[in-house]
Each structure stands twice: as structure tokens, then as C-alpha cells.
């Protein structure tokens, strides 16, 4: 693998689509102009588990303007094993809010009203939606999930944790929990589906047009070439738009029943809470054993989460733990409980965001138990090689991030005593935590480069820009790969008309797509040199290349690292919590575009605050649904909650990760924030909160 020389990379370029977005010219899925659309609205189950015993659609069908009412009786039979996509295929209900019927009508208002007139009778069964009742030891519903990423096994073990714990001078053994989080992208899940003789055209909001194409083609027994998926702009996704879900299949079904007519479908905010996935709640136990000098002898991390009965999804919360600290005895274990709930899905830093809250809170507890500064404790446990893979790191700068952060944050002035600082009725504390995220490369991308004789390059790849700035950053990568100026590059993405691409996720976009573009650029240069004497022929030259395998994967462990700092204020009398200051220092390889990268990291840190203090989907155990299913009730940090947020990174030159030297910046910003804030809350108040979110009632003096 050769690396490319940064010229465009590293420039803080404005977003290429920024002006269009600001002027409202960038079209999102639902805004795509279509002729004579029909509208779709779903009917959702009101029981959590059971069987449909009758559906009366007569009243709905009789409404003027209603075109069709779909139920499991008349919906097309699908061919898919994916339980989430098997919409309207049987009389079984697997979670409250599952789609049990749908109305297609001339207007969205008619569709919505008619949907409320569809009468569905159920024979309900007793449901189980309570993760808290699922404790190991009583494990009928619990099992070890399948691997999410082949590199990271669900169970790891080395040495003898129990023996090491028994003989450890200092021990921490605590249970931490994180709640059910809902994504709430600004743009809800939307689709415009049209069925013609050629097949489906789907305009939708997605993180991966290729994956949607494959999912829909399979479900409807079509050739992928009969499904065109277009997604030029996406208004946020955060993982919730990676996998195709019921909404897309339902829209396609509806389009099939009104051939030639585009069917428009936008979920309401309330519907997104049950239909688009969520970060599953976790219950985690962390055990740390150490000598009195703080050197770890044992690390053990176990997590229980939930999945649905339709499909397994596991957030691998214990994934980061084996990459963090040296200890001769280590174990991680991951379980999922199958409950009568919707299927969870990917949410920013799936695994690390929840898991590192537990591990990094426990590290703080250990530092206090050892009487050590928490940064010093982490430095003492810095491993020489990857503790689990036993490979050197391609680059690892956790300690540099901690030290640089400490310097910038003013950490050395800190008095570690809890409740030591007070100002005008507010207790003040500071906290620190480490962050990490693996460098991942997703399979399945190809890039085409078309060079023309005028020195322009069209770069085609079915990647998507979910609002992160991918379009701009990938243009910079292409410019450097082709040793051209940014102005010479015409990058086209967001359409299955272009070569297939892996989904936007796992902070792997630039790595997966950029590596394909670099490979194509390499081949283009070679072809030009060997066959065309170094100049582009008059009719141009086109090359397509795959994302290559990374030959260094067997030699190096590849991870980003970071350090998160937070200052919190807790009101002595009311327990109100404010976070006036957050500071993050990250080591994520080369930064392609400092402007968009900063936004990614800053957004992650802001979300980390929101996850720590505000967000929580409240489940009603009796009904089995999220009760606070709108933005007035599901609290996301408001502007007034976010204080000064400082984002820094250190220069890191890693020739092993990919030709660009990038590690990805999408996820790591959120990792560790919750622990830094919880640790700061402890420092301020002397109260350790192990269950997120940290709300004022948990800190209120009696």
C-alpha cells in the first residue's frame, strides 16, 4: 500500500454543498419533485405481543381519496429472512408499534385519518419488555450474540480474573447502566417509492444506497439492477439509516399497489421511536483489580442488552475494553436478552459510547480507591502492545491526548477532594475519561474514475453524505489521489447508478471509499503511463477499482484514541447540573478537512453531554412502548445546555491504516464524554452516579 501526499487533504475547505443547503436548494428525499404522488400512512399495533384476530378496513376504504388499505391479507409476499423487513407477512405481532396495516391515499391527511379508522382486533399475550429483570444466573432469555465485526469476538478471556480479583490489593466491582436512546435525526425516515416496468425507483434518506438496493431487491425477488436508490442529501442518521427497515419495504409495497404513481412516506416523529431502531439499554458489570500502585491485575467487563424477537442486534458494549489497558487477567462477555420490543440498531459509536461509560467510570473509581490521579492511573496501565491481539498498535496516542488535554484544561491545578470547590451555591468538579474507536474498513466498495482530455476527473461511487461533509472530504481525497486540484474533481455519489459502496457508518467512510478511490487513481496513472504515454486520450479513460484489503491488518492493531475533559456545576440545593466546559483531544490519524472534522468531533461531544444528562426513552412496562415519544418530552441538550466546547487533535502520521492515513472521526467524539461528566459530578458532589442519565433528582439533597 502506498500512501498519498496531502495537498488538498488538511485544508479547511468549506462544504461544497454548503451554499445549496443554506439556500434550501439541496433536495432531501421527500422534497424530490414528483408528479401526482400518493401518500402512505401506517397503522401500528397497540399490543406488544399477540395475534391479529381481525382487521376491519371497511370504514377506511370508504373514505374518499383512499386508494388502498394494505394488511397481511393482501400485501405482496416477501422473500426475506430479515424479521424487521417482513412487513405485513403474518398475523403475529412482535412489538408494540409494529406495522399491522397501511393506507395509501391521495393526500397525507386522508391517509392519516383513514389509518385511524382501520380497526384491528388482537389476541394479546403476556409480554416481556423489562431488561432489568434479565439478570445473569437466571438466563432463559439471555444468549451470547453473533459477532458484529469479525475481528472482535463477543467473549474474550485471558488469565484468571477471579483469582486475580481475590488477591488484588484494590478492587472495584460495580454495576453501571445506560438507558434506551433514540436517534432523532432532524430529517425523519422518508421515502418516495415508484414502481414501473423497469422496477423500483426509491428516493430516500439512507446511509447506504447499495444496502437498501440489495435488501429491497431480495425482499421483492428482483435483480438489484431493477432497484434504483437515490439519496443525494441526508438530514442526519446517526446509524438509524444504515439498515433497511420496515418503512422502506412498506413504501415499496405501497408503490407496487399503485404502479406508476410515486408514493410518498415520511414517518412522524412519534413513529420513529418505534420503527427506526435505537441504542439498546445496557446493564454492565465492571470488575477491576489492582495493586496499591494502581497497576491493573484484572479487568472484567460484562454487559447485558436487549434485542427483539424479530432480529438480533447487539451493541458490542464490551468491545473497547480489551484495547484499553494492560492487565494479565482479562475477560469480557456480552449477552443479549430477546424481548418483545422493536429491534435496536446502530447508534453513533455503537458499543464504545455505552461501554466506555462503564469502564471509564470504573477507572475513576479505581483511581480514587488507589489515591492516584486518574490520568496517572491510565498512564501506568498503558499497554506496550494490544492486550488482546498481542500486536503492536499502528499508532497509539492515548497518553499524548491525556497529557495535552490536561495541559490545556488546567488539570494540574485540580484538588482531587470531592466537594472542595463551591461558587455561589454551585458545587464545581472536573472529570476526565479516555476515548477509543477502532479503525474499520467495510467491504464492498468500488470507485470509478473517468479522466477526460481537459484535465477533469469524474469520480463515481455510491457512497452517501449524511450531513457529515463526506462529499467535500472525499473530493479532497480524490484530488490528492489523482495529484490534481479540488476544482478538477467532479465527485458524484448518493445513487446506485454509480459503483456500489459500503454504508456510511463505523467511521469507515473515508477509509473504505477513499481506499477505493486511491486504488482507482493508482491504476489510472499506471494505465496512462503504460498505454497512453502519460496523457489522457481524446475520448477519455475510465478505471474502476475495489477497496483493497489492508495487508497490515495482520501486523498491527488499529485504533483511534482520545481524552475527554469536563467541568460540571451542580446546584447544592436543587441538584441542577450544568456543564460550562468540555474539552476533547483526539488522535485519529490524518484530518482530511479540519472544518468538517471539527464539526464531527464537536457534535459527538455535544451528543455525549446529551447522553449523559438529558436523553432517555422512557419505556412503559405495561404497554411496552416509549411514552416520551416526541421532542418536547424526549430531551436532547438545548443550546443553553452546551457550554464552551474545545476540540483539539494531535498530528498523527499512520502509514498502516490506509493510503490517506485517516482513522475516522465520526464516532470517537461521543465516546468517554458520559464518563468524564459522571466523574466530574462525583468530584463536585461526592455522589457517584452509575445509571445514566444523570438527572437532578439523583443529586438532590434530601
Amino acid at each position: 500500500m502506498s500512501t498519498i501526499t496531502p495537498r488538498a487533504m488538511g485544508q479547511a475547505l468549506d462544504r461544497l454543498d454548503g451554499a445549496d443547503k443554506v439556500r434550501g436548494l439541496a433536495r432531501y428525499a421527500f422534497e424530490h419533485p414528483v408528479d401526482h404522488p400518493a401518500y402512505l400512512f401506517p397503522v401500528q399495533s397497540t399490543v406488544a405481543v399477540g395475534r391479529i384476530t381481525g382487521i376491519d378496513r371497511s370504514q377506511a376504504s370508504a373514505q374518499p381519496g383512499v386508494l388502498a388499505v394494505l394488511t397481511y391479507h393482501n400485501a405482496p409476499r416477501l422473500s426475506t429472512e430479515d424479521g424487521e423487513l417482513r412487513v405485513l407477512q403474518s398475523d403475529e405481532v412482535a412489538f408494540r408499534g409494529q406495522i399491522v396495516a397501511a393506507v395509501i391515499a391521495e393526500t397525507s391527511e386522508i391517509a392519516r385519518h383513514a389509518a385511524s379508522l382501520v380497526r384491528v382486533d388482537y389476541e394479546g399475550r403476556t409480554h416481556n419488555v423489562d431488561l432489568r429483570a434479565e439478570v445473569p444466573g437466571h438466563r432463559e432469555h439471555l444468549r451470547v450474540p453473533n459477532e458484529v465485526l469479525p475481528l472482535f469476538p463477543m467473549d474474550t478471556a485471558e488469565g484468571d480474573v477471579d483469582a486475580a480479583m481475590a488477591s488484588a490489593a484494590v478492587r472495584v466491582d460495580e454495576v453501571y447502566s445506560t438507558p434506551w436512546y433514540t436517534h432523532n435525526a432532524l430529517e425523519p425516515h422518508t421515502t418516495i417509492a415508484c414502481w414501473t416496468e423497469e422496477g423500483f425507483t426509491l428516493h430516500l434518506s439512507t446511509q447506504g444506497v447499495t444496502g437498501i438496493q440489495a435488501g429491497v431487491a431480495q425482499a421483492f425477488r428482483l435483480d438489484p439492477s431493477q432497484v434504483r436508490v437515490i439519496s443525494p442529501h441526508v438530514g442526519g442518521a446517526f446509524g438509524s439509516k444504515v439498515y433497511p427497515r420496515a418503512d422502506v419495504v412498506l413504501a415499496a409495497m405501497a408503490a407496487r399497489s399503485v404502479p406508476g404513481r410515486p408514493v410518498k412516506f415520511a414517518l412522524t416523529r412519534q413513529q420513529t421511536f418505534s420503527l427506526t431502531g435505537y441504542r439498546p439499554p445496557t446493564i454492565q458489570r465492571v470488575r477491576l483489580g489492582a495493586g496499591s500502585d494502581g497497576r491493573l491485575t484484572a479487568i472484567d467487563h460484562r454487559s447485558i442488552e436487549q434485542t427483539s424477537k424479530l432480529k438480533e442486534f447487539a451493541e458490542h458494549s464490551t468491545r473497547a475494553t480489551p484495547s484499553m489497558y494492560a492487565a494479565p487477567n482479562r475477560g469480557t462477555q456480552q449477552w443479549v436478552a430477546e424481548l418483545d420490543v422493536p429491534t435496536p440498531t446502530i447508534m453513533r459509536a455503537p458499543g464504545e459510547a455505552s461501554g466506555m461509560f462503564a469502564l471509564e467510570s470504573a477507572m475513576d473509581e479505581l483511581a480514587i480507591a488507589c489515591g492516584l490521579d486518574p490520568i496517572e492511573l491510565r498512564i501506568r496501565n498503558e499497554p506496550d502492545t494490544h492486550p488482546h491481539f498481542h500486536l503492536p498498535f499502528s499508532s497509539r496516542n492515548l497518553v499524548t491526548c491525556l497529557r495535552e488535554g490536561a495541559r490545556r484544561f488546567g488539570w494540574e491545578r485540580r484538588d482531587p477532594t470531592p466537594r472542595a470547590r463551591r461558587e455561589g451555591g454551585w458545587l464545581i468538579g472536573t472529570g476526565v475519561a479516555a476515548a477509543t474507536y477502532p479503525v474499520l474498513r467495510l467491504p464492498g466498495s468500488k470507485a470509478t474514475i473517468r479522466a477526460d482530455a481537459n484535465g477533469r476527473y469524474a469520480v463515481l461511487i455510491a457512497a452517501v453524505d449524511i450531513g457529515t461533509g463526506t462529499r467535500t472530504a472525499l473530493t479532497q481525497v480524490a484530488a490528492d489521489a489523482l495529484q490534481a486540484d479540488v476544482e478538477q474533481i467532479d465527485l458524484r455519489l448518493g445513487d446506485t447508478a454509480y459503483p456500489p459502496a459500503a454504508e456510511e457508518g463505523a467511521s469507515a467512510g473515508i477509509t473504505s471509499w477513499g481506499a477505493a478511490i486511491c486504488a482507482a487513481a493508482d491504476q489510472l496513472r499506471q494505465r496512462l503511463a503504460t498505454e497512453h504515454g502519460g496523457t489522457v486520450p481524446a475520448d477519455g479513460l475510465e478505471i474502476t477499482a475495489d477497496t483493497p484489503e489492508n495487508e497490515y491488518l495482520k501486523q498491527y492493531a488499529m485504533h483511534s484514541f482520545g481524552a475527554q475533559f469536563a467541568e460540571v456545576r451542580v446546584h447544592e440545593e436543587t441538584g441542577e447540573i450544568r456543564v460550562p466546559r468540555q474539552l476533547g483531544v483526539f488522535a485519529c490519524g490524518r484530518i482530511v478537512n479540519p472544518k468538517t472534522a471539527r464539526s464531527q468531533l464537536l457534535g459527538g461531544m455535544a451528543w455525549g453531554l446529551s447522553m449523559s444528562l438529558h436523553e432517555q426513552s422512557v419505556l412503559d412496562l405495561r404497554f411496552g412502548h416509549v411514552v416520551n415519544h416526541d421532542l418536547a418530552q424526549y430531551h436532547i441538550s438545548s443550546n443553553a445546555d452546551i457550554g464552551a466546547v474545545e476540540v483539539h487533535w494531535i498530528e498523527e502520521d499512520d502509514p498502516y491504516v490506509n493510503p490517506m492515513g485517516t482513522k475516522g472521526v465520526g464516532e470517537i467524539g461521543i465516546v468517554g464524554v458520559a464518563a468524564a461528566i459522571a466523574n466530574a459530578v462525583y468530584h463536585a458532589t461526592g455522589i457517584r452516579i452509575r445509571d445514566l442519565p444523570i438527572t437532578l433528582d439523583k443529586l438532590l439533597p434530601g
Partner: protein
Amino acid sequence: MRTFRYERASTTSGAVALLAEAPHGAFLGGGTNLVDLMKLDVARPDLLVDVRRLTSDRVEELSNGGVRIGAGVSNSQLAADPLIRRRYPMLSQALLSGASGQLRNLATAAGNLLQRTRCPYFQDVTTPCNKREPGTGCSAIEGHHRDLAILGTSPECVATHPSDLAVALVALDAVVRTEGPDGERVIPMTELHRLPGAEPQRDTVLRHGELITAIDLPPLAFAACSYFRKIRDRASYAFALVTVAAAIDVVDGVVRDVRIAFGGVAHKPWRAIKAEELLRGGPAGEDQFRRAAEAELADARPLAGNAFKVPLARNTMVRTLLDLLEGPR
């Protein structure tokens, strides 16, 4: 589609007459609550009589030294009004702590008082709720009730009234002027909202078709220094867990007069009469404030999920009064 008629009248009596004929009709102010509830299928009026521009949009000084607020005054305008800010700062603070700038621009004073509870089950037609459908049961008592009431609840309903403005008005002894099919009347703010009892579907004592035309504030010199303190789950744009509106008149360390009201604790804005009585004529100090708060909250009957509101309300009241004594810290 669920259709409804939309009407505008040229006079208040015309508007009242329109609704008198329509048992399922409703007045429309800014629509920021009513229209939301219509979308959720919680409210199903067949007639909307738009009164936003019909009622006065002015804040006027009254000859007795009080102030009259037209029912159509927007929340933003009311919060910014110089007279209000000077004489009743708690009222302006209450408004600014509520909703968002956009909502406040649209919301009217009368609509604010008559907004409906934010109990999540009330807003979700797939769950039982006595307030929405009498007799179906209360989902909140054994369910999610973190934000709900601790005082004056009934076995039928534990909802809270969400308005911040109403809490300040109750503390200030405001009165509401109405015009209804049976003529005009004046209702003290303390009596406008009800406790749920056996009829949680009735938020207020207003009769169908009774139009709020204005809100009158009596003069209260010591309210020129008054506070509204709102405790909520995030720093902005959230309904209250607990609020306290307070003004206190202390001379030589003795409480001459005091006004205290709680929000977020009951089906109505809760005037702390017991606490006020205990404090009036006695010394002003933290211990006294605390005892008064405890006396007021002695009747609290919290549920498992909102017991924290009792100490929260107490501490917030004590802190607000101390801040009034000492100046804010």
C-alpha cells in the same frame, strides 16, 4: 379526513354566540397547543372560532395602579412589556422560561392559561386516560409520572397544569375577565383552575364558550422585586419539574407581606397560602422559610416516581425567598 369549520367573528359577543351554537367547537388563540392536540387526535373540534386578533393585544395601565393584559397579547410581547418588567418582573421571567421564542411569538395570554396538561398518556390516544376519556382509567399513577403532581391529586388523575405564566398570575392575585353566553364575569386566577377530583376532564371553571377577554393585575408595590425560578431537566425549552413565583416585603427583618406560588406540583397553579400565613408578621430567615415550605408541602402525596419533587419544591422556595432577601448570588 376529519373536517372542521373555521370562523372569525367581528365582535367578542359574535364569537361567543358562534360557540354557543357549537357544543364541540373551540376558540383558537395562537394554536400552539390546540392544533398540536388536533394533530394527535386528542382534540376534535368541529368548529374553530379564531379569537387571536379579536381580543385586545394591548397591555394597559389601570386607574387603580394595576395593569390590564388583553387576552390576545402574545407571550413575547407580554414578556417584553416595560410596565410588566418594571412592576411584575416574575411574570416576565415566567414567560421567558417557557416554550421557545417561536412559540412565544404565536402564543396568546389566554391560550397560555388554557393549555392542557403535558401528561404523556393524555397526549397518546392509544392509552387510557381519565382526563381525555373519562372512566377509562389513569395510566400515569402506575406508569410514568415523573413530571406529575404531588399536591391535590385524586385517584382519578395526577396531572399538572403546565403553564408558567399562570403560576406568576396566581402569586400576583390576578383576575381573569370573561364573556360568556350568560354575560361577563370576573374570576380570580386562584379559582380559574380546578383540582381534578372526580372530574379530571375539567381543567378550569370556565363554561363552554366562555371567552377570556383580559387579565387584570392588581397593584402590588413589592412585586417590583420578584422572582420566578424554574427547575427543569435541561437549561431551556422544557416544562417545569417545579417552579416558584415569589415576592416578599420585609421591613426591619420582619415579613410585612409575601406572595408564593408553586408550579409543576398540582393540577392547578398552587398558591402557597399556608406558607404565606406562617411567614406574614414573623422574622425573615432561612429557618422560617424552610418551616413554611415544609408546612405547605405537608399534604404532599407524591408517587414513587416523583417523590423528589417534595424536597425540590421546598429547597427551591427557600432559595427563591433567600435570593429576594439577599439579592441573587
